[in-house]
């Protein structure tokens, strides 16, 4: 099995040179096993599935097609992280020991980027400052800043989503109000009868508003169930398509709360407006005299 050059280049980034551990591991392995025993690599589950590879299989890794390579043994199969930046990537991921990677690529003792883990946010700021002050030719960044930089597209997309959401809410509010006016208007006879037998405006408006509120809450709970189901189906579909554990759609407590509260407010306002309009009409006019 030959792994093509592009993957291997990517590996240089993917190996996420964790400083010491990445370099210690090969040494310790080299010490414990015979010199010519194949070294270990990890591959991602997607590659494992597509090439039907298993832990313990031996494969040849090379810098390019037709180039000489090393025989290695698959030590582990990794799952992809739930990272939106990764889902659109078609490439496979292979991790190998840094020394072996460098020798395969003929890169020598060189890396483009590496990551350093720090114990705290303070230590991060300190490390960034010290590296930038002393190192020549490269720049240290906080991973959070890098993430913000690379997720700018997501920010734009998410702004679009918010706009779509707002438009939907405004449109459905108008829709709800119209439905409510029509629904309450169907009750004009009832309202007239209630007025004639001596029910006060307050009783009538109150009962309409109460009913509207109850309908709004029930409706929004129904909406939450529909949303939850749709969300589940969307996730199941796209997780299969992209082979990622990433959740594409989520219904959070905040969203449920917002939806119910919004529906409740809209229901109450619409019910109140509609009922008030009827109650203000003289009861005899409501009978269509």
């Amino acid at each position, binding site marked *: 099995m030959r792994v093509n050059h592009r993957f291997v280049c990517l590996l240089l980034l993917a190996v996420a040179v964790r400083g010491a551990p990445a370099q210690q591991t090969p040494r310790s392995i080299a010490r414990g096993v015979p010199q010519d025993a194949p070294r270990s690599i990890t591959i991602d589950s997607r590659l494992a599935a597509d090439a039907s590879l298993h832990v313990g299989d031996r494969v040849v890794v090379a810098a390019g097609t037709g180039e000489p390579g090393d025989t290695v043994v698959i030590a582990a199969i990794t799952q992809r992280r739930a990272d939106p930046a990764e889902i659109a990537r078609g490439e496979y991921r292979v991790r190998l020991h840094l020394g072996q990677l460098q020798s395969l690529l003929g890169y020598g003792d060189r890396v483009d980027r590496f990551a350093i883990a720090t114990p705290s946010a303070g230590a991060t700021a300190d490390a960034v400052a010290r590296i930038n002050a002393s190192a020549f030719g490269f720049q240290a960044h906080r991973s959070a800043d890098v993430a913000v930089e690379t997720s700018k597209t997501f920010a734009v997309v998410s702004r679009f989503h918010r706009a779509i959401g707002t438009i939907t809410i405004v449109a459905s509010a108008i829709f709800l109000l119209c439905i409510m006016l029509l629904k309450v208007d169907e009750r004009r*006879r009832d309202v007239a009868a209630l007025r*004639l037998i001596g029910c006060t405006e307050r009783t009538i408006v109150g009962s309409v508003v109460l009913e509207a509120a109850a309908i709004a809450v029930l409706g929004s709970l129904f909406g939450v169930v529909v949303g939850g189901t749709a969300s589940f189906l969307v996730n199941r579909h796209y997780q299969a398509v992209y082979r990622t554990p990433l959740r594409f759609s989520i219904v959070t407590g905040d969203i449920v709360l917002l939806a119910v509260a919004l529906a409740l407010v809209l229901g109450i306002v619409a019910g109140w407006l509609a009922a008030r309009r009827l109650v203000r009409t003289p009861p005899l006019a409501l009978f269509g005299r």
Partner: protein
Amino acid sequence: MTAIVEVRDLAREYRMGDERVPALRGVTFTVHQPEYVAIVGPSGCGKSTLLNLLGVIDRPTSGTVSIAGERVDQLDDARATEFRLRRIGFVFQRFYLLQALSARENVELPLAEAGMSTRERRARALELLEYVGLGRRERHRPSQLSGGEQQRVAIARALANRPALLLADEPTGELDARTGAEMIALFERLNRDGTTIVVVTHDEDLARAAKRVIHMRDGTIVDDVRVDPADRRVEPVGLAPEPHER
């Protein structure tokens, strides 16, 4: 005899743009407890207009209306509503029951509005349904009742808060002859039991059952006769403002 209804020079004019439609042109009469009065006359003569004024549903252009000793012609909306709830029972040609509620719940409505406790109003509603002969149908919705039965529920509802005055506008208008006759018997029983009734009708049988018949034409009273209960002989009582006080 206590005067329940006192009407003086009552006029009601409808305005349709620039045009004025005089529906009532100066009507005067008194109804005592426990009278049973039928108002009859050709269509458009102002019967419903008069009844609506008695029921404090509408306000006159001029003249006064007193019900049970209280002036009601200029009540504001809230006071009129309160008055209707406590003092007036209204029965309509088309029943106007709430379709979503059972017979008992319809009767309970004015009781609940008057602030009666759940247990009390339940008992009172059942008693009233029993009275109009619908004791067994308390759970039925209006759509599960015949027209006559619905009108009985409407009458029970009208009587709920023991009104001083029961008003009915064409209560037999939607009913067949037999059911109409049952309704007439029910009104007679109500009156015997002490309810003051004013009914507007085209139904001659219903009018004949009343003890007094007021004839109207073109917004005025043209005749006011008392029916002798013994032989149902019609005796004119004249057109004076106080036919019963002579």
